[in-house]
């Protein structure tokens, strides 16, 4: 299977995501710019765009509906936080979006990482209870998507009796959306195995990632990597841009990533931040850079290097079992255009060659058997 690439839609136009305190974000956006971003993504071979959820942003479902009407191919990976909606109403919204977009919707389950923000939504459960609720939430959603008649469910957090919906998940390929789930904790892993198709993990060196990935693959699920990217024609240019970015950021008084770390209860965020702190340099591998994490938070762990370096890093992750990537860039549009033009063609070429090689191996194998 060819690797699949997704990108985060920069919803509020903040060039350096999380560089600003959340109080400075404005929550308004230009629809035209967003549509242009979607079309650029389509041209660059991007599979879907992550529509994030948070109090500083517009609602991802409503925004996706508007964007779907103006695009033809791009999918929308809608972030959902159980606990802010009845699962039945959520399925109704996702199914409506699928019908409007001809199935171009998948979902990204986030269990929430800031207890502070969760309170804005009236959600006061702790980390483990939130996972337990997400478990039930997905069980209900998947029951609707299995289309086995009326849905009945009785759990600790939800009680659904004779649930039915007329609006089905509309798609030529599937009866329910592809489900992505993010998290580094064991709970997240178990949840992904039970209900999702793909688990997102923050990037770390392929060698340390390998064993965990293998465990999930063995259960028939995919593993994807959430990582920022900074590719330039040469390694020197990439390094120069990376360091000049943090030089600009360090002029700001607040190290946002650090303050955030103290407030989050997300295992993924904390472990990535720890990775950055414990490392003796800013480099976990020659191309995996942690230098921006103190300023921009855990998602700023980044692939940095020349086109070829980054393409081969991605292939190396593929060898470790990673099959999907969710990228962020600084800024997103430029980086995505560059990736589509310069890096992706290298990856696709390697994939084609690899397939050819495999075919000829198979052919050799068949001959050998035939000759025996």
């Amino acid at each position, binding site marked *: 299977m060819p690797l699949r690439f997704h990108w985060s839609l920069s919803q509020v136009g903040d060039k350096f995501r999380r560089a600003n305190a959340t109080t400075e974000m404005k929550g*308004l956006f230009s629809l035209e710019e967003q549509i242009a971003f979607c079309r650029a993504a389509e041209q660059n071979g991007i599979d879907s765009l992550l529509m994030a959820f948070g109090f500083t942003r517009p609602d991802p479902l409503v925004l996706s509906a508007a964007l779907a*009407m103006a695009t033809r191919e791009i999918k929308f990976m809608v972030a959902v936080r159980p606990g802010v909606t009845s699962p039945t109403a959520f399925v109704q919204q996702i199914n*409506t979006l699928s019908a409007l977009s001809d199935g171009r919707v998948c979902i990204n389950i986030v269990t929430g990482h800031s207890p502070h923000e969760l309170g804005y*939504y009236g*959600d006061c459960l702790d980390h483990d209870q939130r996972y337990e609720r997400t478990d039930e939430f997905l069980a209900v959603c998947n029951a609707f998507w299995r289309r086995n008649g009326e849905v009945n469910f009785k759990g600790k957090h939800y009680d659904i009796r004779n649930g039915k919906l007329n609006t089905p998940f509309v798609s030529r390929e599937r009866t329910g959306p592809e489900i992505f789930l993010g998290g580094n904790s064991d709970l997240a892993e178990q949840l992904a195995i039970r209900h999702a198709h793909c688990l997102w993990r923050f990037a770390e060196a392929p060698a340390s990632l390998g064993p965990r990935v293998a465990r999930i693959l063995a259960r028939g699920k995919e593993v994807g990597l959430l990582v920022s990217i900074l590719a330039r024609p040469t390694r020197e240019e990439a390094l120069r841009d990376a360091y000049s970015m943090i030089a600009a950021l360090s002029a700001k008084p607040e190290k946002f990533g650090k303050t955030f770390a103290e407030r989050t209860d997300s295992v993924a965020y904390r472990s990535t931040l720890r990775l950055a702190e414990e490392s003796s340099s800013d480099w976990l591998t020659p191309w995996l850079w942690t230098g921006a994490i103190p300023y921009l938070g855990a998602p700023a762990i980044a692939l940095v290097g020349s086109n070829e370096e980054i393409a081969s890093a991605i292939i190396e992750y593929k060898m470790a079992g990673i099959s999907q990537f969710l990228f962020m860039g600084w800024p997103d549009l430029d980086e995505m255009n560059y990736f589509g033009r310069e890096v992706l063609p290298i990856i696709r070429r390697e994939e084609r060659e690899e397939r050819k090689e495999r075919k000829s191996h198979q052919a050799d194998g068949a001959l050998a058997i035939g000759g025996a």
Partner: protein
Amino acid sequence: MASDPGSASGVQDMSSMPLRFHWRLPYAGETYGFARTDQARAPEIGLPDPAAQADFCRQAEQCGIDSLLLDFGFGKPDPMLLAAALGPSTEKLKFIVAYRSGLFAPTMFVQQLNTLSSLINGRVSLNIVAGYSPEEQAGYGDFLSHDERYARTEEFLSICRAFWEHQTGVEFSGRYYRVERGSLKTPFVSTERSFPAIFVGGGSEQAKRLAVNHGTCWMQLADAPEKLSRGVSEVREKGIEAGLRLSVIARPTRDEALRAASELIASKPEGERNLKGESDFIKRTDSVSFKAAYRLGEKEWAAPCLWTGAIRSHGSTAIALVGAAGEVANAILEYGRLGISQFILSGWPKLEEMVYFGKAVLPIIRAQEAAVASRGAIWSD
């Protein structure tokens, strides 16, 4: 009347404002109108048909219709997302999205509605209903009784209104909801208002109170004018508008209208099935106004132009003004004189009835309003 701008009451004089007309958006495949039993069965209703529905939106705009009502129910697509998809096809038309409390956290609901407002330039209003079918609510995981649903909706709208007022630092601790320092960055975007118009529907005392406390317009099902006047004055004295939900069968002559009405209910065998379906539904609903409307359906007419003959087969919103264009216009103007200022209408067939209303009924109403306004101007001179 109280047109003196210096009047300290703060209550707007709504009698001089033109009446406003809204129409219900038909669902995919719904050209003639489905009875409730068909709605539950017809899977196509669940699928949006953006092309046909956008066409209906444009026609509504041309007909002088203010907004389209997008219902909420298990059989239908989600109204908020449908509005986001249809909004860009029009410029002036508004969308009234119907919701119940108990489906979304209020913070998230405000975020969705604000996002929608920013996409379509504030052309969105809210219709809050407390829900009418305990069975349907159970499918959404909601098991509260009629009165508790109203109590929860009170809390829900309090929180929504707080977000629309402050956007940040929203604190609420109630029986059903809790919000801690709630903050949202996407505001309600509109050139006209800081929060959406809120239609609160329902015939019960709780509904009326909810409308007065948190809404901008109390909606009820139509009935004879004399039966409505007390409730209407009551909410208007409290500073909100009163509106009616009803259907219309207007034709060039009264005879043609009566014929169209009897054809609507004559069709067999669906007729029998619809009667059974609706009576089963009424047994199970806990809605005060649906039950009251069903009782009205015992007789054929509630007032000279107010036909109740389709209620028992087509549901309570099928209570209809039936008559020649002029008769229907006059009946509406009579409601207007009572103080009812907004109307959510529907008809059969869906599109043709709206087009005829815009062409033949609405001009009579507007001419009459203009005449009254000019008389008023002479008096105040």
